[in-house]
């Protein structure tokens, strides 16, 4: 386990009695008190996550806008400074390199936030693509710690620690050099839980202080430290994709049901041709939501059958804590993606009945 990377908060987690597990090359807290109470804390009150394992890439220079617009599938040209865009980087064939957040810091200055397990791959990809542009792209992951406070009471808790009126940061907007508990941070109203909340980027050496101050400030509101276990159930109920589950190099944004984030009417981007072709020819498989009708828990990788044939695979499944049902996401043959279609999930050698339902398992509580 010595080769696992540690966030600046590692010792804080261990001291708090967190259960540590390897995740994407990092030794991370999967839970403190328990997955379900942490999940509920975020849905009903506030939860604090250490997401310092996430990667950060700075992109600056005269052609930064043209470059980022070419690198990702979204419309970066329409993104105003101070705003954040959820997007994806694709390969030429339309498969996904990674999904990411694009922060436009200034006219020609961007911060890209990428998945922990993809930092090296993404960095190499971005540097390679950047060669054709007059830009300076560099991996800054070591220079940032990241905390996320999420939940209906998140704003009230964070507000106690800053003079900035947090109402001035709208949904998917951010501000830099915000002083929180005396420390300078970039703060965005973003998250990965389906709740209102903020992500806070700061220097690693002040991460522990910020973590402690936020938990202390949120004591009366019932703010709890929350681990990766709850992070996954929360993002799953909110139908937010996770790289390596719903999306990967073999899945396109259209197949993953993320076509909304693909801007096909604008300038060229990597993978555009393949996605245009796929759109005109039609999809062969697609991400669906399903509910398990028999008893059992569907897990990633379990095969889905219809009349004895394999028609797809589960990407994520849970007995969802807030929704209260056994539900899943699956990539299945397009023929079986209509609502109310029945199929079977092979759960540890037994075929269990399931039915296609809307993927909107949980109504997101964003403040827009």
């Amino acid at each position: 386990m010595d080769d696992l990377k540690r966030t600046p908060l590692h010792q804080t987690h261990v001291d708090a009695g967190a259960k540590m597990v390897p995740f994407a090359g990092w030794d991370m807290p999967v839970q403190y008190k328990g997955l379900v109470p942490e999940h509920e804390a975020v849905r009903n009150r506030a939860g604090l996550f250490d997401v310092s394992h996430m990667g950060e890439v700075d992109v600056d220079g005269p052609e930064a806008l043209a470059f980022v617009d070419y690198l990702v599938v979204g419309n970066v040209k329409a993104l105003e400074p101070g705003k954040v865009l959820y997007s994806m980087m694709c390969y030429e064939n339309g498969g996904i390199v990674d999904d990411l957040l694009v922060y436009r810091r200034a006219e020609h200055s961007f911060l890209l936030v990428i998945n922990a397990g993809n930092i090296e791959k993404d960095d190499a990809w971005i540097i390679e693509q950047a060669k054709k542009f007059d830009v300076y792209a560099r991996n800054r992951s070591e220079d940032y710690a990241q905390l996320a406070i999420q939940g209906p009471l998140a704003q009230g808790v964070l507000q106690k620690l800053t003079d900035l009126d947090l109402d001035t940061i709208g949904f998917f907007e951010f501000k830099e050099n915000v002083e929180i508990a005396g420390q300078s941070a970039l703060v965005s109203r973003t998250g990965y839980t389906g709740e209102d909340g903020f992500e806070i980027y700061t220097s690693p050496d002040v991460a522990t202080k910020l973590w402690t101050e936020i938990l202390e400030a949120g004591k009366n509101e019932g703010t709890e430290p929350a681990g990766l276990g709850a992070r996954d159930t929360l993002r799953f109920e909110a139908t937010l994709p996770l790289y390596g589950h719903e999306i990967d190099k073999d899945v396109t944004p259209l197949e993953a049901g993320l076509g909304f984030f693909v801007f096909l009417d604008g300038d060229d981007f990597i993978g555009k041709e393949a996605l245009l072709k796929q759109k005109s020819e039609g999809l062969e498989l697609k991400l669906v939501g399903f509910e398990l009708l028999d008893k059992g828990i569907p897990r990633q990788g379990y095969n889905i059958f219809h009349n004895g044939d394999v028609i797809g695979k589960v990407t994520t499944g849970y007995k969802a804590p807030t929704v209260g049902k056994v539900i899943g996401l699956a990539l299945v043959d397009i023929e079986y993606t209509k609502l109310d279609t029945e199929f079977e999930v092979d759960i540890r050698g037994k075929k269990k009945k399931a039915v296609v339902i809307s993927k909107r398992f949980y109504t997101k509580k964003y403040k827009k």
Partner: protein
Amino acid sequence: MKVQSGLYYSEDHEWVRVDGKTAYIGISDFAQHELGDIVYVELPDEDDEFDKGDSLGAIESVKAASDILIPVSGRVIEINDELDDAPEKVNNDAYDAWLIKVELKDDAELEGLMNAEAYEAFIESE
């Protein structure tokens, strides 16, 4: 963590309660605590026969499925149906919520298991 005396324990954190030639099998309080909220217990069918170390089913926490390895060989004579609708009983009282009842094939296998005192030392060393 509670360790119930009078039971036999395996290194995989199952317990065995012997009642003549039959044995009740469950998981320890330590195991249920490690697993967290249990959302489903997959049990075998009656009359299924298992050798010691076989997987008799699985316990599913929110996070993952864990195999339950049977600590003694035997034939299943009853399964605990109550767990089908109330898997949380394993969290609430791991020593009351038995999973299956088996007809023991070989009493001598019990000698390879730990008593409560040995098991308590074992989980402390884990």
